[in-house]
């Protein structure tokens, strides 16, 4: 039996409201005991005094790029990046090549995912090829192991198909994750429509492109009773729509990315293509509304929308660059620096949105520190300040707008199923076992 004893750490478990200095004992892949001053014969001891232990983070929105775009990222490289970022469970979007829209593709990616250092789940497409025309084999994909469906990258523009997708997903108790963007309103836009799109001359995407689809999808979900999750919410209007819908009792949840609460569209004046993502960076007013949504619980989840691209793809004229930035390795630093230190969220609330919040949305039995649960844990040094250096990323994608930015809060150790899958260098954690 493999025993691992974490000594002296401060446990934070948002689900059980635990917040205490206790030792935690892992046997094989499970948490078996939490208590004061545990003495265990034959256990490997990790001294985590002064560090915080949280449930392993769960990221329900990553692009692992496999199959088809292995030059951007692979399941293996993305998983390593996840482990470094403190994520023990990641959920891959289906917009690979081919799009994950049938059970055999699901099985093939999940087989690869089993070899990864973190738990890898897969989302299936809503429609075949994510083209928005005909429903994919949603039931069979569920049998093969998907945890949700999404045509992320696009909205299903045909409202009738979307309605049927929501109704059909209900049969299999699958949440439907929606990327909300009206294709006609967004056009070939690259940035948020506002003062900075005017000054830069970059092609604008209006807030209404997001808002009208959020409103539509809420309406369709309300009608069908399906479980709706809104991906990467970014506008003031959309936050308001979700808030109202929740009040009415609609089964809707939503997520925000770290970059949408950390940056405003002012960043685009650099013309750096690492400020180009979809949805675009929004105005200061939108960022305020996002923070309010996080505070009052309208926003349930922080998810990275980790979107790695190669240097060659991003090192081009703004319009030619693909949308998206990497996110797994900067998420915690941004959450601590921009939300916890700034007083937007308490540490417990912030951790909740990285752990049990996302686990609940997809019905995963993850995200809590309780005896009997999987030993997926993240150990954090809350005070550690560090400077983002993309060359040190384990992700193949170095595309980040945060290069050179100083952040606070660093992952020291990540444990998945009782195994240490990541350990920061020079952290001086002694193995005394």
């Amino acid at each position, binding site marked *: 039996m493999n025993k691992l004893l974490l000594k002296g750490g401060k446990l934070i478990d948002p689900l059980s409201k635990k917040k205490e200095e206790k030792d935690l004992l892992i046997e094989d892949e499970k948490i078996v005991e939490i208590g004061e001053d545990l003495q265990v014969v034959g256990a490997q001891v990790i001294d985590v005094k002064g560090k915080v232990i949280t449930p392993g983070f769960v990221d329900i929105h990553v692009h692992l790029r496999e199959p088809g775009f292995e030059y951007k990222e692979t399941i293996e490289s993305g998983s390593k990046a996840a482990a470094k970022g403190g994520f023990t469970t990641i959920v891959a979007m289906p917009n690979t090549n081919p799009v994950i829209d049938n059970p055999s593709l699901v099985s093939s990616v999940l087989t690869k995912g089993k070899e990864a250092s973190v738990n890898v789940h897969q989302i299936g497409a809503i429609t075949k090829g994510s083209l928005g025309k005909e429903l994919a084999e949603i039931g069979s994909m569920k049998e093969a192991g998907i945890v949700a469906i999404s045509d992320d990258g696009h909205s299903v523009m045909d409202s009738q198909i979307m309605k049927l997708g929501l109704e059909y997903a209900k049969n299999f108790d699958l949440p439907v994750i929606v990327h909300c963007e009206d294709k006609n309103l967004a056009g070939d836009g690259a940035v948020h429509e506002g003062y900075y799109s*005017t000054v*830069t*001359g*970059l092609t604008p995407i*209006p807030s209404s492109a997001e808002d009208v689809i959020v409103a539509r999808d809420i309406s369709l979900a309300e009608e069908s009773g399906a479980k709706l999750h809104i991906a990467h919410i970014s506008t003031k209007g959309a936050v308001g729509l979700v808030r109202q819908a929740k009040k009415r009792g609609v089964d809707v949840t939503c997520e925000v990315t770290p970059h949408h609460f950390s940056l405003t569209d002012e960043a685009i004046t650099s013309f750096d293509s690492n400020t180009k993502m979809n949805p675009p960076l929004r105005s200061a007013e939108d960022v305020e509304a996002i923070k309010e949504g996080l505070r009052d619980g309208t926003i349930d989840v922080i998810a990275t929308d980790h979107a790695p691209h190669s240097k*060659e793809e991003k*090192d081009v*004229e703004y319009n030619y660059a693909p949308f998206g930035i990497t996110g797994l390795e900067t998420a915690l630093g941004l959450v601590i620096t921009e939300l916890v230190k700034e007083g937007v969220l308490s540490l417990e609330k912030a951790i909740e949105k990285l752990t049990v919040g996302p686990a609940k949305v997809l019905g995963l039995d993850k995200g809590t520190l309780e005896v009997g649960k999987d030993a997926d844990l993240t150990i954090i040094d809350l005070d550690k300040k560090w400077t983002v250096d993309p060359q040190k990323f384990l992700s193949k994608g170095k595309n980040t707008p945060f290069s050179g930015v100083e952040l606070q809060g660093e992952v020291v150790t990540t444990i998945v199923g009782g195994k240490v899958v990541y350990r920061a260098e020079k952290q001086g954690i002694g193995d005394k076992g």
Partner: protein
Amino acid sequence: MGILKNKDLIGLEKLSKEEIELILNTAKSMKDILKRPIKKVPTLRGKLVVNLFYEPSTRTSSSFSLAAKRLSADGMNLSAKSSSVVKGESLVDTAKTLKALGADAVVIRHGIPGAAKKLGDTIDIPVLNAGDGAHEHPTQGLLDIYTILEERGKVEGQTVAIVGDIKYSRVARSNIWGLKKLGAKVRVVGPSTLMPKEIEKMGVEVYNNLEDGIEGVDVINLLRIQKERQGKSLFPTIREYAKFYGLRKKHLALAKEDMTLMHPGPINRGVEISSDLAYSGQAVIEDQVENGVAIRMALLYLLIGGGSKSE
């Protein structure tokens, strides 16, 4: 003589009032040269100026070429059709080629905002933006301001109405930045479908009605209406645009009596301006063309020759 702070000219947004005045003063000396019987000086002899044009443009390209010739520089044109651009070479790689060719400055026209800045960040020789998407067209802005200065004696306190397709216009943006820095009042006039969002934050007044927009102004700068905008429902038809926003003789009484009428060309006669007006005494369209050469000579001189930090 002063110097320009940056090696590149990307836009008027980033220039100080003093830098703009330096360029305008230098252009005046250049215009004097253009008035001489022999309109050429040896200032930039042996220097190579490359025109890198990703979008067709006869006017701006010729104006830069002529400016280089008047200063005795060698010119070279790389247009999108003949260069490897169309074969998929990246802007970054093209920049390296230009450097290897021994270029001393690059003039770039590109359809995408930020392309000139990207080129400037990639190579260490001066880059002059000849228009990047809807972002800026600084030499056009400067030549318009120079023309206003020449015609009206000063820029400060003048009220300038820029009329037309503001949304897609790099000319409008460069004019606004420059004019505001020199103390002019700027109005933008056009249908709301051709107005970019929150443009009032640039310090301009927005008018959706032509008559109101030109009332009492010193200068009217008409922008060219791109015919390809038709059919995208930004306005129903060219005919309807001309009816509500085309400048005609009857409008002149609304502006100041000695109003200066400008147009960056080429003109769509009968659309944004009626034929009789285009050839009226108030129009300074040909002066703008001549001033364009002087402005571009001044910039080539300041950035490559006498006025840069390297000297």
